[in-house]
């Protein structure tokens, strides 16, 4: 275990915040196992770890949302017990959550007012809001309603709301997950400035390059335990990943020559009104996807990706059959079952509740998408053996770890359930696979298995459409990348030409200058 405390400039005085042997137990499960960290003023401290490593539990304890089962939190050297988030805020601890808690139909100022404990008048508060947002270069119009704002702007509200309490210590949970690369750069400038003002920041992320660039110290958690504290600037992304995962991550191998064949999924000028209030209208979307090809769709969440998935899968139908063509057959008006019979398969973003029925067994969840075309139903009667066989084959092929042969979907970990869902679809040998956020919230090992499976499927001749917010993932597996913005889809770029800068511009709604320099993503 390495333990170089790079930032120990304040060796005389106590750290701003300290946890000593902090432990949180849920039943038999140790979410945090005796974690000790020191956070100094003027420090951006990264908290690294895979999903389920215990990052969220730790920050929830520090922010007073949960009570630790054992151990101690010290604030400026004194032991404290936080009864709740309002007490944490009163002491000077602020937090910006990954999932925003904003009311869509209220204005920016109204949302901020709801989150503040103070007694100042609405007018004074609005004025202070404008002033804080100007000072930190986080422009916001207090009078606009939240539903009109982009995800980046919504995050600004959360950050400004936290800053208005003048915190000494700010926790940010995966702040860049929803930002374009350019927006992320702007955020880093703000964070540097907060640091210069003497504040401390706890920065939760799993994007290693970002952490290397921004953070002074990193604490790495694995399986609820602290495995290391290090200076990320002195580590490589690979060494950080090794500490997070605990072993080498399997490299995903793209086959050298993948031949493209006939168009298998064609979308012609697809426009669709939103299905629900504040949804996104799809506008004139067209693309052609050949067999053997992987097309990536990048974009900030909430720009129409969900709506596009629903239109492609047939969960929402289009009046004009010709807008979606699967295997040469106009399918815009066909139901999801009919589209499956044409050879299409779908993996939605949400695993529990959309991709699977959480409280049903895996065999029943195999039946959920397999009943139409996989020989699991004869004359209306279920062939239980065939459904179980699918579970067994998916388990074997994709290394699904589970406690028994046929458990409930909800009892699997995120990564294992995702491997099952992807496996369930791939085992049907689809001609077209539409997959949304294939590795969202999945551990690195499972992510590698899933990406490899998508590559292998394309190599076998299927057309694969991958929607992802993870640009590195798209760079790794896609042949071409298009960007969704406000319900429109850009023309696809070859992956070799799709730089972070270009994609970032498209994700922010700009069009590309023709004279952009071309270098690969992640370079």
């Amino acid at each position, binding site marked *: 275990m390495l333990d170089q405390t790079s930032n120990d400039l304040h060796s005389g005085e106590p750290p701003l915040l300290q946890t000593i042997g902090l432990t949180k137990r*849920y*039943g038999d499960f140790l979410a945090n196992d005796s974690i000790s960290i020191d956070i100094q003023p003027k420090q951006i401290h990264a908290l690294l770890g895979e999903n389920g490593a215990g990052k969220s539990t730790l920050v929830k304890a520090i922010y007073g949302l949960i009570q630790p089962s*054992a151990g101690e939190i010290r604030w400026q050297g004194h032991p404290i017990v936080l009864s709740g988030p309002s007490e944490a805020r009163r002491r000077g601890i602020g937090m910006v959550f990954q999932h925003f808690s904003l009311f869509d139909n209220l204005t920016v100022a109204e949302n901020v007012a709801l989150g503040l404990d103070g007694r100042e008048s609405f007018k004074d508060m609005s004025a202070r809001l404008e002033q804080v947002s100007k000072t930190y270069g986080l422009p916001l119009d207090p009078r606009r309603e939240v539903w009109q704002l982009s995800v980046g702007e919504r995050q600004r509200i959360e950050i400004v709301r936290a800053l208005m309490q003048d915190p000494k210590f700010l926790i940010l949970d995966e702040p860049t997950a929803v930002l374009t690369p350019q927006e992320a750069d702007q955020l880093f400038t703000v964070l540097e400035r907060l640091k210069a003002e003497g504040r401390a920041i706890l920065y939760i992320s799993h994007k290693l390059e970002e952490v290397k660039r921004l953070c002074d110290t990193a604490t790495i958690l694995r399986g609820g335990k602290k495995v290391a504290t290090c200076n990320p600037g002195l580590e490589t992304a690979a060494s950080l990943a090794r500490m997070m995962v605990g072993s080498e991550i399997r490299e995903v191998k793209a086959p050298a020559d993948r031949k493209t064949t006939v168009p298998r999924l064609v979308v012609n000028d697809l426009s669709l009104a939103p299905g629900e209030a504040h949804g996104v209208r799809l506008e004139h979307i067209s693309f052609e996807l050949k067999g053997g090809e992987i097309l990536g769709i990048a974009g900030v969440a909430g720009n129409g990706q969900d709506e596009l998935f629903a239109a492609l899968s047939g*969960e929402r139908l289009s009046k004009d059959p010709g807008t979606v063509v699967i295997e040469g057959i106009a399918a815009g008006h066909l139901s999801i079952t009919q589209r499956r019979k044409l050879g299409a398969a779908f993996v939605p973003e*949400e695993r529990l509740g*959309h991709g*699977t029925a959480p409280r049903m067994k895996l065999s029943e969840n195999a039946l959920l998408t397999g009943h139409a075309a996989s020989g699991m*139903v004869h004359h209306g009667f*279920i062939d239980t053996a065939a459904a179980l066989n699918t579970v067994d084959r998916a388990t074997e092929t994709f290394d699904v770890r589970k406690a028994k042969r046929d458990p409930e979907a909800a009892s699997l970990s995120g990564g294992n359930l995702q491997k099952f869902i992807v496996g369930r679809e791939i085992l049907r040998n689809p001609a077209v696979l539409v997959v949304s956020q294939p590795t969202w919230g999945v551990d690195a090992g499972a992510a590698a298995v899933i990406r490899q499976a998508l590559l292998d499927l394309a190599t076998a001749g299927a057309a694969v459409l991958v929607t992802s917010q993870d640009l590195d993932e798209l760079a790794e597996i896609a042949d071409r990348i298009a960007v969704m913005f406000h319900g429109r889809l850009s023309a696809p770029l070859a992956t070799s030409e799709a730089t972070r800068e270009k994609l970032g511009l498209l994700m922010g709604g700009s069009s590309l200058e023709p004279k952009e320099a071309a270098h690969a993503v992640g370079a």
Partner: protein
Amino acid sequence: MQLVLEKRAERSKTIALVSPLIAIGLTIITMVILFAILGKNPMLALHAYFIAPLTDGYSLQEIAVKATPLVMIAIGLSLCYLANAWNIGAEGQFLIGAVAGSWIAVKTQGTDAGAWVLPVMLVLAAAAGALYALIPAICKVKFGASEILTSLMLVYVADLFLDYLVRGPWRDPHGFNFPTTAEFDPVATVPLLIEGGRLHLGSIIALLVVAAAAILLGRTIKGFEIRVVGAAPRAARFGGFNANQLVILTFAVSGALAGLAGIIEVAGPVGHLQPGISPGYGFTAIIVAFLGRLNPLGILIAGLFLALTFIGGEQAQIAMKIPLDVTKVFQGILLFYVLACDSLILYRFKLVFPNRQVARGIG
């Protein structure tokens, strides 16, 4: 020290089986207290309710007769509830079925109609019950009206319609002005299984319904569809299942079963159409459905148990002058406990000590 509910990783199969028994146990404890407050000897009352009816052949047959409509209705309701469609109006569908079937019986009264009468009565009653149940189903699907309210309100419409018929056009001219039709002809009557007994063909039909529902839910894709739509609506849509179609289907099936139960009751044990043919079968069946964990076999057992409370209530009234309404109180308390105990399937109780003490203990 604090008592908290902790979520289980998987639903507990043991508790799923045991929870109705816990509910019954808690209900009996509550009833003992209630009997004591009423000034009755609780042990004698419990004996009258639960033991006495099981000790003679006549009462045993009567239990089966009472369980027949309860089980048939509850099976239909369980399909609705599994699919997340809340049919509360089975009582109305029961009455409408009874009315529609009786129509044939009244019209063929005294004619030399053949053996076709009873089968036609059964079919007509099922069809009428289904159509009556389709009113709230279609209002829900087309207009988003709450099926709980509309189906419940239609109970009173059916009740008053029946009342009108037996006081007006269908009243028995030789019935001393009582609001009732004439006794049905033998061809319009459900045959008895044992000569001179109470048990009738309807009980066999109820058993067939239980078997059919068990096969539907356990073995067929339609049954799977019903379960998925209720358990995870979004996943069901992703699976290609249409929730609205299922609302229509499950309401129609449960209405048909309630209607069938209605005519079997009228053409069987009662023998003629009159107000008060149901002591609230359609509502008690809701309790039967939940007490039976929406499972066909469970519903069969729960139906027999609730039929026992009906018979026991009558015996307790005769023997100990305990008001018959206490039976309804019993059934209400039972439903309350059944729903409360269901939370134990997904959660477990745990004693938690304040962590400050623990922190001090360790640190």
